[in-house]
């Protein structure tokens, strides 16, 4: 190891700061780039309401998929699958704290057409329980495919976000999906 100064060490700390493990996601009251964040993310004035709902639905589907997979899996795969499922719950909560995903898509469309309207009163939509393959390999492959699709979606959804902080969280969610897909690939025989 080269003899390095404390300054160099500090610089390393700065250079590798942040990251997925310690990402401060929910505590921010300003956006990632210093712009003011919406006063009420997901609220009536939030221009990203439809996007939050879209991603929230996708994350809800993944949560349900992982719950179904966890019920079928045992052994070494189970803790990994459980952990990834819990992470999707965290993504959903961070991106869609008001659970806009439970509103019918038509309600959000109606809402956006009527400017300044309050939250519509609608029946919540349910996430269908997916049918998974019977074999462990099939289940892991299904999860991996779902993660790869979600990663691709999050990349384009990040581009659509108006709020920079939402863009950052969605980019992190996409990175998490990509990492999860790789992890699932590695445990599948």
């Amino acid at each position, binding site marked *: 190891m080269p003899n390095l100064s404390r300054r160099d060490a500090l610089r390393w700390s700065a250079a590798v700061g942040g990251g997925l493990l310690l*990402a401060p996601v929910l505590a921010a009251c300003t956006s990632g780039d*210093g712009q003011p964040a919406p006063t009420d993310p997901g609220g009536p004035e939030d221009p990203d309401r439809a996007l939050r709902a879209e991603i929230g639905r996708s994350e809800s589907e993944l949560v349900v998929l992982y719950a179904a997979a966890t019920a079928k899996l045992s052994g070494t795969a189970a803790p990994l699958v459980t952990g990834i499922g819990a992470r999707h719950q965290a993504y959903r909560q961070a991106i869609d704290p008001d659970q806009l995903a439970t509103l019918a898509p038509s309600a959000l469309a109606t809402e956006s057409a009527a400017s300044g309207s309050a939250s519509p009163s609608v029946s919540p939509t349910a996430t269908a329980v997916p049918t998974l393959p019977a074999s462990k390999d099939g289940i892991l492959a299904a999860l991996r495919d779902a993660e790869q699709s979600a990663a691709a979606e999050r990349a384009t959804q990040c581009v659509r976000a108006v709020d920079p902080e939402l863009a950052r969280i969605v980019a*992190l969610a996409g990175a998490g999906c990509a990492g999860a897909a790789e992890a699932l690939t590695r445990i599948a025989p």
Partner: protein
Amino acid sequence: MTASAVPGAELERLDDVLDGTDAAVYAYGLVAARLDSEGAARALDAMAAHRGHRDVLRARILVLGGTPRAAAPAYTPPFEVEDPATATKLAALVEDRLAGQWAALAAASTVQRRLDSALSAQECATRSVTWSGKAPVWNGAT
């Protein structure tokens, strides 16, 4: 309404990612030296990928009117890198942290450049898992 970016903020985040990328290039030198030939080849491939990103980052900083900062002569890892286990641990850590920096850059970037940053975050996250062998446990409440 469309997404917008503050040029100063984008420059700041670009500088962060460049710093993290320089650290990653340095780290992979340490990592490669402590792995077998197969592992070292993977480390050198990763180093080459980060070098490619570094060139693009420097160009983006220049386009925005900034001055790319030179890399430090050396970086001290947060722990001793003395064997294959600690080497792979460092590689995974560097990639994981860099994924977060790319995500922050995506947020600060104009729409045209957001996609590239978001995909780079995914690339780093995927590479992190190839080293650690496990998915990062993201705590959304912290």
